[in-house]
């Protein structure tokens, strides 16, 4: 990220806090995402990663702090401007969130039909192209209920790509996929940023994926980022939480939360 500081960030979170009632999920998040970065967010289950992605597209509003997309403050925008940003952002949901009453084809067609003036032929071409990317061309006419979890996830990914987004948010894109498909998805995410100049924010638990995809990684722990840097820093991290997470050990500070003071912070 050094050397790119002269560029203006695509996305920035300043001092973001989020509470659900008494529970503080995010407790002062600072983050700047540069264009064409592939940022991997790691963190415990229930740590607030999905919540963080929801904040970015303005589904949730932070209790404190600011979320900016380019120079626009997401939570101060009117509905129309917010929807413009959302149309430029693709979101891959953890549980796919496909529209269950629409076929795979119609799920992919939906954003194009509702938000663009593309003709039927053009829409059909994009659908075929995106389904091919995720290797799902053969299920075009099926309903989501007829697909497996991993298949749905890939359709969800294809749907996020139909409008050629500038920013793509992936919520655990390879969870529940076999290792080969998972690698295919990883390659896809990499090629997306390399060929289309898209920026990606990827939430993942899979260490192999994380190291393969990420140009930068952050670790979310107890509502804060406790580490932020290029992947190699994470491999040799001195931070016990990061080290435990990367190695997947059971003994360590994670799981005894409260006993351990947050240490290294970049």
């Amino acid at each position, binding site marked *: 990220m050094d050397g790119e500081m002269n560029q203006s960030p695509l996305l920035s979170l300043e001092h973001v806090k989020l509470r659900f009632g008494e529970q503080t999920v995010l407790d002062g998040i600072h983050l700047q995402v540069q264009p064409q970065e592939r940022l991997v967010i790691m963190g415990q289950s229930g740590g607030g990663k999905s919540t963080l992605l*929801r904040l970015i*597209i303005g*589904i949730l509003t932070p209790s404190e702090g600011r979320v900016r997309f380019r120079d626009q403050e997401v939570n101060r925008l009117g*509905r*129309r401007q*917010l*929807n*413009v*940003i*959302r*149309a430029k*952002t693709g*979101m891959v*949901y953890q*549980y796919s*969130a*496909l*529209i*269950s009453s629409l076929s795979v084809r119609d799920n992919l067609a*939906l*954003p194009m*039909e*509702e*938000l663009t003036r593309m003709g039927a032929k053009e829409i059909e071409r994009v659908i075929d192209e995106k389904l091919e990317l995720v290797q799902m061309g053969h299920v075009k006419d099926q309903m989501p209920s007829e697909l497996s979890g991993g298949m749905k996830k890939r359709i969800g990914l294809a749907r996020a790509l139909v409008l050629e987004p500038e920013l793509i948010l992936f919520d655990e894109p390879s969870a529940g996929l076999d290792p080969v498909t998972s690698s295919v998805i990883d390659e896809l995410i990499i090629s997306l940023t390399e060929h289309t100049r898209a920026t990606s924010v990827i939430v993942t638990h899979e260490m192999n994926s994380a190291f393969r995809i990420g140009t930068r990684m952050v670790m979310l722990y107890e509502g804060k980022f406790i580490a932020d840097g290029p992947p190699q820093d994470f491999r040799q991290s001195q931070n016990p939480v990061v080290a435990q997470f990367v190695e997947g050990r059971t003994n360590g500070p994670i799981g005894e939360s409260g006993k351990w003071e947050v240490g290294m912070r970049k």
Partner: protein
Amino acid sequence: MPDLPGLGILRRALAQVSSIVWLLIGMGGEIGDHLARGRLPFRRAVLFEQTARTGVGSVPLVGMVSFFLGLTMALLTGYELRTFGMERLVPELVATAFCRELGPLMTGIVLAARIGAAYTAELGTMTVSEEVEAIEAMGIGPLRFLVGPKLVAIVLLMPCLVVISNVAALIGGAVISITTLNIALSYFVDLVREGLLVKDVIAGIIKSLMFGLIVGLVACYRGLTVKGGAAGVGAATTSSVVTSITTVIAADSVFNILLVKI
């Protein structure tokens, strides 16, 4: 202020009414945005699908319930009026009662149970499975896209279904009049045409539009605010039906009081 138990209920009811008004305003805004881009609010196919589901499917139930109600009403009033030799009043009675009161009310209740429940369950399931959120995240207004066609369908179809209800009730009334009251069919028709006032028909139509809006709004609001998985969808569906039926009956009374005053 004393903590009356009724006060809490009133406050909650008011909070919900204002949420529903916001839903309506939000939907209007989203439709406005879409129109501003030079596009129709929803695709014709979606609207047709909703109207087919809402309207055509409800015809048998509305027709049957109204037919039997009309029949019963003619039977009971005929039986009473006959002792005074006034059975000529039966057709007018059935016609007026249904056009301005029972038709809209019955149809409203039937649609609350049949369509309102379906709307709530559908939107509730979509909310729980994050489909509504996904639509919002794509930048497609979910209120316009999901609520809009449902609301338009139910509001436009209510008057049509009320007409069917009225006709069915009159057929029921006619059956009794012909068989037990010695009123011939042509005489029955004449009596209905003489007795029925335009005012009553208009009042009925206004009511039916109003009830359609109430049922649709309550159902969609309940669906979009579901919390807590499958059980939440079940609870929301029950509450949607109960709320819309009570609201329809209450609105009916208010409307009648106002109308008598005028």
